[in-house]
């Protein structure tokens, strides 16, 4: 059991990070540089026009300070988090932490809060500048506090994601991971920047409330909660795995993964104005679920180490076909379970209407079910393919598998989408979906009614392809089940497997 004192005040990992990063000299240098930046560079960054005539230099300067804070904390702190575990692995110090009696949650929180501590310190150094600009900005102190709260929760979610990435990273991927990370940094960064720009141009009232399933929530508490919830999922994954053997990472249990997918769908359907139409909600949630279930499926894939252990566990029962379809059963159940959420979540009468620019259709139940199953099979097909690739010998087999999949989809997109008009004949869309099942996300009732048989053929082809990849996967499993014999001829026969060990 972790008490708050152990987690925050007396957390050895947090204290270690603070001792390393917050030496008085380092703090003095950081404060001096921040002071110079906020006096000389930041005033020049925000053009007068962006603040508008509404609030003069104060708003512009305040926005500059807040954006500098967000960049420092999100990007600087994020990169520190991204290196928090991978660097320790590289330096061979991480095993010493894993073998201590620190609880996984203590280790996680120590890294999450400790690694970016210098970035937060710089953020704190910028507070006086923000307070100087505040009286001339047209904002109240409450508005400023609002922004800081949002920034803090966004940063925690993002940094938890960064620590999670750091945990799963192989050392050699660090540079690539930083670039990927900077790309993802845009998500909370953009939301914060948009908030700043909107508030700068139109006043705080412009971002006051958000309509969630017809209920009005204050903007900052709502998004702070959303960010905190994502942080909690990432921390859960960290807590489950941080002290494990890296070859045995399993970020979430299948049930937790289902919960994550459900939560993401719940937020998406309620936040984006889709809740007025079941048809729109289903299509919208499927677009989100392409990412969610692909990510969750990737998490469930077994590497060769895990597959070997699984095979040893199965020794007595033998290899079943169900194993060859891994992780399809879990993903299919997850897709179908979350797939019914649009039906449940769109039943509230107080849901806001869909925007007029969106094309809506009444719910067609058979179309709804077909889309759901087809979508699930498509995701499963690709995951069984990736699972097969992951077990193939050679360097970075999963990366190779993903690369081949990317090339496959890119080539077919060029073939089908560049040379074909957007408005295909219903039969053509169904035919193309055999190869590029993403067509199912744009299928409508007309396409369904006029080409149902072709759509069924496309559905059956997904099953056939999945079976084909499962067959290949099963062959890899069978080869793994045989113990490797890598004994060079220099090893005397007496020392080879099967020879009795001499133990006196």
């Amino acid at each position, binding site marked *: 059991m972790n008490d708050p004192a152990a987690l925050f005040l007396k957390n050895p990992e947090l204290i270690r990070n603070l001792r390393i990063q917050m030496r008085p000299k380092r703090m003095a240098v950081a404060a001096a540089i921040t002071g110079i930046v906020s006096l000389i560079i930041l005033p020049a960054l925000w053009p007068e026009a962006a603040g508008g005539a509404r609030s003069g230099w104060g708003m512009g300067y305040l926005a500059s300070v807040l954006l500098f804070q967000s960049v420092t904390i999100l990007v600087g702190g994020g990169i520190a988090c991204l290196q928090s575990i991978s660097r320790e692995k590289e330096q061979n110090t991480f095993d010493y932490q894993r073998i201590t*009696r620190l609880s996984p949650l203590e280790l996680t929180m120590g890294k999450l809060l400790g690694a970016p501590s210098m970035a937060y310190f710089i953020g704190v150094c910028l507070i006086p500048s923000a307070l100087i600009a505040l009286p001339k900005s047209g904002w109240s102190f409450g508005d400023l506090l609002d922004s800081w709260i949002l920034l803090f929760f966004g940063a925690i979610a993002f940094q938890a994601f960064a620590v999670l990435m750091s945990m799963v990273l192989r050392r050699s991927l660090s540079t690539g991971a930083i670039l990927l990370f900077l790309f993802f940094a845009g998500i909370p960064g953009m939301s914060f920047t948009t908030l700043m720009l909107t508030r700068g141009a139109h006043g705080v009232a412009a971002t006051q409330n958000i309509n969630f399933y017809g209920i009005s929530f204050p903007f900052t508490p709502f998004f702070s909660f959303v960010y905190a919830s994502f942080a909690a999922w990432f921390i859960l994954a960290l807590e489950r795995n941080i002290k494990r053997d890296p070859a045995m990472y399993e970020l979430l249990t299948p049930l937790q993964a289902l919960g994550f997918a459900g939560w993401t769908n719940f937020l998406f359907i309620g936040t984006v104005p889709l809740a007025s139409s079941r048809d729109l909600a289903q299509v919208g949630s499927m677009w989100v679920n392409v990412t969610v279930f692909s990510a969750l499926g990737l998490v469930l894939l077994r590497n060769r180490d895990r597959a070997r252990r699984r095979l040893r566990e199965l020794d007595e029962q033998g290899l079943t076909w169900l194993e060859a379809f891994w992780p399809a059963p879990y993903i299919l159940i997850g897709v179908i379970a979350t797939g019914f959420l649009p039906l449940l979540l769109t039943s509230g009468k107080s849901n806001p209407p869909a925007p007029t620019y969106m094309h809506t259709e009444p719910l067609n139940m058979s179309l709804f079910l077909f889309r759901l199953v087809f979508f699930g099979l498509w995701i499963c097909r690709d995951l069984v393919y990736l699972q097969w690739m992951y077990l193939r010998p050679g360097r970075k087999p999963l990366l190779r598998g993903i690369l081949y999949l990317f090339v496959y989809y890119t080539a077919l997109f060029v073939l089908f989408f560049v040379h074909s008009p957007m408005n295909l004949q219903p039969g053509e869309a169904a035919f193309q979906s055999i190869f590029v099942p993403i067509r199912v996300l744009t299928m409508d009732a007309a396409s369904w009614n006029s080409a149902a048989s072709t759509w069924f053929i496309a559905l059956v082809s997904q099953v056939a392809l999945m079976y084909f990849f499962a067959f290949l996967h099963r062959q890899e499993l069978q080869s793994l089940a045989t113990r490797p014999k890598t004994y060079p001829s220099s090893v005397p026969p007496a020392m080879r497997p099967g020879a009795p060990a001499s133990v006196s």
Partner: protein
Amino acid sequence: MIRIENLSKEYDLAGGSDKQGPVVAADRLNLEIPAGEIYGLVGPNGAGKTTALKMICGLLVPTSGRVLVNGVDVEARPEDAQKYIGYLADFFALYDDLLVWEYLDYFGHAYKLADNSIPGRIEYLLVLLGLQTKRDAFIDGLSRGMKQRLGIARAIIHDPPVLVLDEPTAGLDPQARIDFKKLIRDLHKAGKTILITSHLLGDLQEICTSIAILEKGRLVKAGHLDKILEEGSLVPGAQGTPAGQRVRVKLATPGFNLQQWLAQHPRVSSMTVDPSGALFSFGGTDAELAELMKALIATGAPVCGVEKITDSLEQVYSRLTKGEVM
């Protein structure tokens, strides 16, 4: 203290195309390490020593089999097992930006020692390991030998009954190695069970009570060091005669026909004679050897010394891994 049951670990090499492929780093190992031993694990690079140690510490999950430390299953209850273990890795690293006392303080808290006991424990270890003058120095400025000692201080800060040391003498200068061996003996006297790997077999022979020899993930030989050296030193006898221990007899003055006298004895073989004595293989018991010497002296041979020749661990290891003896 440590019980290894049918432990296997298979993994894949991720090197260049010529080095790829599955490897058995540990192949159904069975080993019992009793409390109070200094147990050496010997083998060439890639024999699976580090893998075995990491599985014992719960840092790697075995493909099959299990490890019990003090009766606790390491895989099932890693945190309970790890409180009994102090671990020092082969390519160890410390936190260079911390002060020496801060480093030990961190691990003292990480091992959940009582807050009020940590300062005393740190001072004790600094004195024990001769680091008291470096208490407030940055780790970055320590020599390799000092860093090694600090690593050991970290490993024993929670006073574990078992110490797992992977190549602890690698890269140390001769004096640091001497100091290190003394420290290991002191820890052994204090009741620690020590599992240690090293390529410096001479060092292991000096400090170990038992050894296990690994080759390509398999256990070739394990047991008490004296017994392994004795068995490993046996010379194959002539056709039809048992393997024998090697014996050297020294004569005070030349003149006695030792070769002729010894050749009459059926248990003597592989004889080399020079004016000062003879080296031969004796295929009997110690009592029979004593009888032989008594008879030799009775004939008037000027015997001034008899010794049983035991090979060094290095020689025995070399012969064992070449399959010359088992």
